[in-house]
C-alpha cells in the first residue's frame, strides 16, 4: 500500500510538469493552430531563468587570502557575493537562497517577451503553411535556442537548489497513519504540485471568467465569426502565445531544483508532452491536464519493481502503449473535439 501511495504522489508530481507544458502547447494549438515544437525549449529557458538569477545573485568579488593557497600554490582568491557585501551576511545569503522562487517574478516578463518575439518574428509567417512546415521551423528554433543556452552555460547540468526551508522531505505516511519513514516525499516536489495546481487553475479561471478569455474561447471555437464581429482576434491570440510561453517558463523555473537544468531538458519533455496533448485531444485544455496526470501516474506505476518483473521494459513504453490504446478507442483523444486537425 505504501508503495502505491508513493507512486501516486510521484505520478501526480510528474503529471504536474507534463500538464503544465501540455497546457501551453495545446493553448497555442487551439488558438493559433500552430504545432509548436519549440515549446519544450521554452520550458528549458524558464529553468535557465532560475539559473541566471541564481548566478546574478551569486556574482562575487575576489579578495586574496594569504593564509591559503589555490591548486597552483598561489594565494587563494576568496569570492564574496556582492549581495552579502551590500546587505550583510544574513539578508544577502537569504536572497541567494530564495533565488528560485524569486525567479518566478524575473521569468514572467522574459518569457512573455520571448513568446511575443517568437510569434511576431517567426511563427506568424507560418500560420497558413502546412503543419509539417510549422513543425520543421519550430523544431529548428528549439535547436537554435538550446545551442545558444549550451554556448553560454555549457553542456553540464547546473545545480539550482531550492531554498533551505524546502529541502528535505515530509513524512507523508505519518499523516496517513503509517509508521514513520515509510512514505516520505520531498517538500519541493509537493510545492511543485501545488504550484502547478494554482497555475492550471489560474489559466482556466482566466479563460472562463474574463471577457478576454471569453473572446479567446470564442476564437478557438470559430475564429472567422469572431473576426467578422470586428474583434482583433490575432492580437488576442498573440497574447495567448505569450501566456503559454510564460506557463512553460514557470514550469521550468520551479522544476530547476528537482533536476539540475541542462540545455537538453526541453527536448526530454517535448515528445512526452506531445503525447499528452494527443491523448488529451488536440486543442483541449482539460484534456491536456487530465492526460498529463493520467500518464504521469501510469508512468510511475510502470516503474514499480512488481510491475517490471511481470512486464520487463514496460516503464519505457507505457506512455506510448496507453497512447495507442486511447487513440484506437477514441481517435480524437480523451476530450478532443470534432474538426480539429481533421480535413
Amino acid at each position: 500500500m505504501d508503495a502505491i501511495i508513493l507512486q501516486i504522489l510521484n505520478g501526480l508530481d510528474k503529471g504536474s510538469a507534463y500538464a503544465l507544458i501540455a497546457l501551453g502547447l495545446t493553448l497555442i494549438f487551439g488558438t493559433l493552430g500552430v504545432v509548436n515544437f519549440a515549446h519544450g525549449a521554452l520550458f528549458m529557458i524558464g529553468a535557465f531563468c532560475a539559473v541566471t538569477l541564481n548566478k546574478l545573485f551569486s556574482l562575487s568579488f575576489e579578495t586574496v587570502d594569504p593564509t591559503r593557497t589555490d591548486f597552483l600554490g598561489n594565494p587563494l582568491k576568496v569570492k564574496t557575493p556582492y549581495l552579502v557585501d551590500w546587505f550583510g551576511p544574513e539578508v544577502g545569503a537569504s536572497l541567494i537562497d530564495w533565488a528560485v522562487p524569486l525567479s518566478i517574478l524575473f521569468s514572467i516578463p522574459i518569457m512573455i517577451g520571448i513568446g511575443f518575439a517568437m510569434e511576431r518574428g517567426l511563427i506568424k509567417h507560418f500560420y497558413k503553411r502546412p503543419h509539417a512546415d510549422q513543425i520543421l521551423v519550430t523544431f529548428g528554433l528549439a535547436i537554435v535556442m538550446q545551442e545558444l543556452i549550451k554556448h553560454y552555460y555549457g553542456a553540464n547540468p547546473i545545480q539550482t537548489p531550492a531554498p533551505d526551508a524546502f529541502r528535505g522531505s515530509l513524512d507523508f505516511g505519518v499523516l496517513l497513519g503509517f509508521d514513520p519513514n515509510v512514505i516520505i516525499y520531498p517538500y519541493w516536489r509537493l510545492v511543485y504540485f501545488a504550484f502547478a495546481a494554482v497555475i492550471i487553475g489560474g489559466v482556466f479561471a482566466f479563460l472562463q471568467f474574463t471577457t478576454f478569455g471569453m473572446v479567446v474561447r470564442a476564437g478557438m471555437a470559430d475564429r472567422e465569426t469572431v473576426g467578422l464581429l470586428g474583434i482583433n482576434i490575432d492580437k488576442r491570440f498573440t497574447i495567448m502565445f505569450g501566456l503559454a510561453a510564460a506557463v512553460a517558463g514557470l514550469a521550468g523555473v520551479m522544476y530547476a531544483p528537482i533536476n539540475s537544468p541542462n540545455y537538453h531538458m526541453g527536448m526530454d519533455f517535448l515528445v512526452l508532452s506531445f503525447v499528452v496533448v494527443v491523448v488529451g485531444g488536440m486543442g483541449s485544455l482539460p484534456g491536456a491536464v487530465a492526460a498529463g496526470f493520467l500518464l504521469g501516474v501510469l508512468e510511475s506505476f510502470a516503474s514499480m519493481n512488481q510491475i517490471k518483473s511481470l512486464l520487463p521494459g514496460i516503464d519505457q513504453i507505457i506512455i506510448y502503449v496507453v497512447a495507442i490504446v486511447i487513440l484506437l478507442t477514441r481517435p480524437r483523444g480523451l476530450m478532443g473535439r470534432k474538426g480539429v486537425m481533421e480535413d
Partner: protein
Amino acid sequence: MTKNILTRRGVLKTGAGVGATLAVPTLFTGAAWAGYMNEPMGASVTLGFNVPQTGPYADEGADELRAYQLAVEHLNGEGDGGMLQTFSSKVLEGNGILGKKVEYVTGDTQTKSDAARASAKSMIEKDGAIMITGGSSSGVAVAVQGLCQEAGVIFMAGLTHSNDTTGKDKKANGFRHFFNAYMSGAALAPVLAAQYGTDRKAYHLTADYTWGWTQEESIVAATEALGWETVNTVKTPLAQTDFSSYIAPVLNSGADVLVLNHYGGNMVNSLTNAVQFGLREKMANGKQFEIVVPLFSRLMARGAGENIKGILGSTNWHWSLTDEGTKAFVKSFGTKYGFPPSQAAHTCYVQTLLYADAAQRAGSFNPCAIAEALEGYEFDGLGNGPTLYRAEDHQCFKDVLVVRGKENPTSEFDLLEVVEVTPRAQVEYAPDHPMFAGGALGSCNPGA
C-alpha cells in the same frame, strides 16, 4: 617516330625489374618499414582527436581537447614540457615525433557511435590521421575502436570505463589507459566494507547500456565477496531524467545502501533525486543509509552540487595527487587554462604521450610497430605510479583512487578528496577473467 615491339626478352627484363623494386622495402628495411595506412611522408604527422564537442558530454570533450592541445605543444617543444619532464621514458626530445612536427585535426563524436565513427573515418581518410584518440563514452569507444581496427590505425581510447572495451570488444589496434568497472569494484569494495561494515544490503540503479551493465556486475561481485547482500538491481533507461519513480521503491526495499551505476547527467539527476527523498538522513536496518557512486567525475559532480558531500566513489586520477607527474601536469594545464584538469583531460594527455613515446621507441609510425612497443610496456611518472600496458588485452594497470565528496570545498574545483590510493596489485585480474571473456584481441592491422 618510335615503335613499341613486345619481345620475350623485354617482358622478362621488365618483370624482373618491377619485382625487384617491389621487394626492396621488405629486403632492406624489415617489417617496421613496410607500407601502412597514412604513412607520413612530409615533415609533419597528423593525429586525430575525436572528442564530444556537442551533446551532453561537450564540457568533458572540451577538457579533453585542451589536454590534447597541451600534449601537442609539449611534444613539439613548446611550453614547459609538462609530464615529459617526469615521464620515465626519455626518448621524446621535444622535436615532435621521430623528428616530424605534430599536427592535429579534431572530430566531434557527439557521444553517438555512428557520428563518432563517421568523424574518425573522415579524419583517417581525408585528413590522413595516423592515430585516433579521445571520447567520453564506452559505446563510442567500442565503435571507434572497431573502425580503427578495420582501417589500420591505432586507437588510444579516452574516457571509457566499461569492461568490454578491453574485454569482449578488445582489438589489437586499440589501447586503454583509463581504468575499468572491474577495477572500480576491486578498489571500492574494501573501502566500503571498512567504512560501512560487511553486513549491508545494497540496491542498485543501473544505466541500461554496456557500461552500466559491467559496472553493476563488477560492484555486485566485489561487494558480495565481502559479505554484502544485493537486494535488487534495477535498470534505468539511459534517457531518464527524473529518477523519482525508481528511487521511491528503494525506501522500503530493506536496503541500507543505494549504488548508483550512473554517469554524467544520469548521475547528477539520480543522486539529486535520492538526496531529495531523504535517503542520506534515513536509517535502515538500524544503520545509517548510504549512497555510493562507483564512477566519479569532477566535471559532472559540479552539477550535483552539495549532494555529493560524503559520497564514496572511484576515479582514475585527481589533480590533488602529490606525485611529481601530477604536479607537473596540473601546473602546466592550470597555468594555461586557469583551472585544474579533469581525469578525462589527464587520460587523454597521457595517451598522446604514450603513443608518441611508442612511435619514437619503435622508430616507426607503423601501427604494428607501435602496438608492439606499447604491449607489456612498463612506465612511471605520468600521475598514476608504476603502470603496465598489458600485452594480452591492451589495458593499463595502475593504482586506482577511492574518493569522497568533500565536506568543505575551498573552490568550485575542490569537490573530491582522495580517501585511498588502491595499489595496482589489488585491482589486477587474469586476462581470461569471466567478466572480460568473449572476445579476441586478433592481430594488428597496419592498413594499406
